[in-house]
């Protein structure tokens, strides 16, 4: 009898342990996924932040350069190399599309050494030493010679943060996309924040329990779970087709994103408002404050940290939103920085999507780099929200 009990006991404990380990394993899997994701992105994307140039001191530059800038670049490089170059194309292939203009600019104002940007293929070979590089063996040989001569320098890729999109991977940057994101987000915030906060105030403080309030609440809860691409469809037919707003602009993008975060914002604000205890409301009323004074002198000010936290989190949410923006045409090829909310623009996540479609290996690196920048922004926003939440936890009495 006792033995039987013991056996079942052991089995039960064994099951208990297994169950627990499964649970731990599942959390472990999630963390592992996060780790894999981040580490593979860093492994792929770090290269976006560094680039290679050939640096040549002023005294090493031969006189009597050819008038064509490309030919001049070739002349400078060949004057350096010990072995003769069979084809000029092999040299040109190693340099970025703007090497010619870099040279021209330097010749106009010769300060410091001449810097010539390497092409994306050369750059990738230097970073990863791929075997299946599109560079021909003789081109790789020239590159190796240049490296052995010590004129190839690695430096921070400032272009990545100061320029817009480009056909050439070595010239691309995220600046235009960042500005586009900023404009879109600002538009969305300006549109959604007042309406969201006012809706929440109305629902929590003024609306009596009624069919109307239930109806609004159901609507908001439902909108919070509608796929964002449906909002993209709405934006396309309402803002662009019906209202005739300009396509591809932060104005339309912001409006769509505003509709997307509106429910989140209302829900977060409602929670913040509800966390103000009844005793505070009673105190205000008993002082002879009217309902509206109670709300705007006490309830709303005391819930501002909560509202700010909610807004930052919802901003972070739409900062990564992509699909609806594809539908309203924010996929344009944007080189210049958008000057306003009615000019064509793209956003960082859309830029990431566009680059990820490109076949070149260098674009994959740039994509991962842009993702890292995006994640840093998201991380900062989340951290600010968490700090705000912890710092302003109110003690009520």
């Amino acid at each position, binding site marked *: 009898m006792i033995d039987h009990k013991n056996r079942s006991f052991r089995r039960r404990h064994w099951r208990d342990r297994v169950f627990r380990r499964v649970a731990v394993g599942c959390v472990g899997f999630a963390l592992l996924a996060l780790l894999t994701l981040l580490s*593979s992105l860093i492994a792929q994307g770090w290269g976006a932040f560094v680039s290679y140039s050939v640096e040549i001191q002023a005294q090493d530059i031969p006189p009597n350069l050819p008038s064509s800038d490309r030919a001049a670049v070739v002349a400078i490089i060949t004057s350096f190399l010990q072995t003769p170059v069979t084809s000029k194309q092999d040299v040109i292939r190693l340099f970025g599309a703007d090497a010619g203009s870099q040279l021209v600019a330097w010749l106009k104002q010769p300060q410091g050494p001449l810097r010539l940007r390497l092409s994306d293929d050369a750059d990738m070979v230097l970073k990863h030493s791929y075997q299946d590089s599109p560079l021909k063996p003789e081109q790789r040989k020239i590159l190796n010679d240049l490296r052995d001569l010590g004129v190839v320098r690695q430096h921070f890729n400032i272009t990545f943060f100061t320029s817009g999109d480009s056909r050439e991977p070595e010239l691309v940057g995220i600046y235009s996309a960042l500005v586009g994101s900023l404009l879109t987000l600002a538009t969305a915030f300006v549109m959604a924040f007042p309406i969201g906060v006012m809706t929440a105030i109305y629902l929590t403080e003024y609306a009596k329990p009624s069919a109307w309030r239930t109806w609004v609440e159901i609507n908001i809860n439902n909108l919070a779970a509608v796929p964002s691409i449906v909002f993209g*469809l709405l934006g396309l*037919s309402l803002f662009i087709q019906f209202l005739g707003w300009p396509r591809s602009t932060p104005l339309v993008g912001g409006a769509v994103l505003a509709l997307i975060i509106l429910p989140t914002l209302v829900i977060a604000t409602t929670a913040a408002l509800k966390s103000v205890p009844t005793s505070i409301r009673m105190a205000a009323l008993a002082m002879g404050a009217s309902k509206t004074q109670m709300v705007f002198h006490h309830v709303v000010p005391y819930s501002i940290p909560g509202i700010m936290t909610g807004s930052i989190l919802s901003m972070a949410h739409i900062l990564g939103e992509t699909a609806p923006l594809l539908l309203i045409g924010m996929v344009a090829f944007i080189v210049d920085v958008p000057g306003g909310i009615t000019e064509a623009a793209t956003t960082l996540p859309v830029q990431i*999507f566009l680059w*990820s479609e490109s076949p070149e290996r260098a674009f994959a690196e740039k994509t991962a780099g842009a993702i890292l920048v995006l994640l840093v922004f998201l991380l900062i926003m989340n951290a600010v929200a968490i700090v705000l939440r912890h710092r302003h936890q109110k003690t009520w009495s």
Partner: protein
Amino acid sequence: MITPSLILGMSVLCLVQRFWALRGMMKPADVQAMQGRSFSLNPSARWGQVVWLNGIVLGAFGAMACFSLSWETLLGPWLSVAILGVGWWLCWRYLTPRCHARAIAEGMVITLLRLSSLVAIFTTAAIVLSLTFEAMAFFRLVSPWDFLFGTHWSPQMALRSDQTGSSGSFGAIPLFAGTLMMTVIALSLALPLGLFSAIFLSQYATHRQRFWLKPMLEILSGIPTVVYGFFAVAVIAPTLRDFGASFGLTVMTESALVAGSVMGVMIIPLVSSLCDDVLSAVPKRLKEGALGLGATSQEVITGVVVPAALPGIISAFILAFSRAVGETMIVVMAAGIAANLTANPLEPVTTVTVQIVKLLIGDQEFDSPKTLSAYALGFVLFFITLMMNIIAMNRIKAYRSRYD
């Protein structure tokens, strides 16, 4: 110069108005004097100012509108003056010692708040209307039967003018099947992993572990889907292809398995945080009762805690389902666009959301069936998620009423 003089005139008017408004209101001292006699009136100075301000704002807005509308006709300035005058007159009339200024002011505030709460309803209405409208236009070109039950999807053919929509190439079954397969793959990963993570977080984890794990999972859920899409294409797909090759399997780069499993990882934090909430909300007394009877913690969890939280867990699963159905970027990037009708998860399939994006990216003409079919797909998508949300909301309500 007419403009400066007009502005000057308006400022003078405002000053006069202000003077009268203040005259009409009571001083605080009068309030105190009145306290002994009556409390039926509230001539509180501040609220009076709100009404007065309203008059000004009304006047200014009207003036601005008229100003910009018909400046050339010279009617504008006069109209602005007239509107400002009306605002002024209204204020003067209302701001007597007997006016209930606060009620008027609060009425305005509440009206503003109520109007803003309409936006949520308008949004839903706009979604329903626009989707229905365009879907109707589509169904005038293609029969709903062909759309819902056709097995061949190639909208590109309809671009040719000689066979507009009549070719029957809008059969959406492959898309529905692809969406379903993708959802099943994602959920079969996300539901167990998410639920067990939630069980760990809510039942086993120490305070410290929770403190670290929760933000980690929040980060995972805060990562944009375009990042997951890139992860799928750039990391998971090649790995899986090499892995499959070592077993002699050909895994296509764009396969349902890759997109589905990455989507599953994306949904884990959603499931785990929703389940964590409901599991943590199960009253302690239930758990302690079972523990007191000598049950192991596994028996308590599977026998007491999970059943008690079941409605909430089911609603979390339903929300995860609608999330998976509506997910776009991962599938756009990692699944294919070819509308294969296949049951093999190693082959590329396409989904409703992918097709919406592919149909609408680039230039659209709003009368071609190609564009309109995206709205028909959107309509189906919205309808499905709406149903799911309603079911989930009812479940949550049932759950709440059980323990409140």
